[in-house]
């Protein structure tokens, strides 16, 4: 549920519950994004090295 949904209310329950969910998802998403970007970078670097 996002703040633009009609059921949303700016109260403590919504902020804590949904905030907690987004916080956890953000950490998981950011962690995986970092892994994938670094992997692409590492793989491309290794390819470059092997060409020379």
């Amino acid at each position, binding site marked *: *549920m996002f703040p633009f*949904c009609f*059921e949303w209310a700016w109260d403590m*329950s*919504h902020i*804590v*519950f*949904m905030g*907690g*969910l987004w916080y*956890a*998802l953000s*950490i*998981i998403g950011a*962690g*995986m994004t*970092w*892994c*994938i970007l*670094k*992997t*692409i970078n*590492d*793989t491309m670097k*290794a*390819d470059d090295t092997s060409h020379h």
Partner: protein
Amino acid sequence: MDSALIPKGVKRCPFWQFALFIGIAGIIALWGVYAMFLCWFKALNQTNMNDYYGFALWIWADLAVIALGGGAFFSGFLKYVVGKDELKNIINYAVLIGFICYSSALLILAIDIGQPLRGWFIFWHANVHSMLTEVAFCLSCYFAVLTIEYIPLILENRQIDKIPFFHNLSHNMHAIMGVFAATGAFLSFFHQGSLGGVAGVLYGRPFAYREGLFIWPWTFFLFTWSAAAYGPCFTLTLTKLIEKVTGKKLVKDNVIDLLAKISGWMILTYMVAKLIDTLYWGAVLTPQAGFRFADFYSNNAFYGQWILFLELFLGGIVPAIILTNKNMRQNSTLLTLAIILGCVGVCTNRWAMVCQVMAVPVLPFEQWQLYIPSWQEVATTILPVAYGAILIGISYRYLPVFPQERELNPIDGVASIELDDAHAEQGKLQPALA
């Protein structure tokens, strides 16, 4: 036939034997899948749940596998956050068991909600006053974390690892696994607790109702504590089982001993808290609610005080004594007995907090309501066991689940080949050295 996929330096059974095992487990799983589709297409009238039993066998199985799967989050917490590095030799297996337990829990919930296509409603139309919403959030997020922890193990398969992208991805995921493990521990703390909280806030059910701290009843903390305490027992039980099946030693004794010791002290401290809780509930809360302690354990055909004895003494005090005592813990038979009793203890606790709560009469004109699950419920509850056996079988065969396996079970042929390789390397180096 599949030797190219099997990790280097380890021996596996012939393919036909493996296929037979998967086939038998697959037939059992198919029976569960058939029952699952019956529940989805013909609705929950396929079960023996009724107005008394909105929660029944499935929810017990759900809570039990989540508690038993607690070994993953607690082992991860001990390895990555506390720094118990020896546990790296069992963490892969703990993660695999956790992955199976949590995917099973989600599968059971998908059957239990009756209409799985509306499963996403809990996220989009969340009831923010329900502990079960928090459970659903944390379960889903923690399952994502477990999947992330399981992926590097898959990527370490001999053939997959040859692809540079996957090799690098596995390496990078390992590098930040501590972040995921800490997130997993945080999520587990809350959903394990909230599952206990659900029972503890039932103020109309004196068998389960407890006081607590702020909005959290004591059952919240007891559930989290018990999952962290007993989860490693399940990891160790399945380690012993796979060692028995394969006829190999897969994890060194010092690793087993460390995890057993930590589990023992956790069970001991949990038992102190649980006994205080039970005594206070029996002596103070029960009379306040107009009941006698004996009312919860008499006048019915099933629930006697034996269940309390099984949960607290056999499943709690006995494993705590064995696992905290070094001499007893190092006796293989006693260790196996203690970890099995631990698993029985936590499952009995979850049964009491789900099914006995529903069975106890709370109004003067009510009777005990006993419940026998339908075959569809039994089949769908056995389904995760068969699924777990298949996944463990495949993972053990093709992935390096146990890092110490090669060292503990050297193969002569491989050892000599490796020795020859080493000599060849030395031979190449000798002229340069000279």
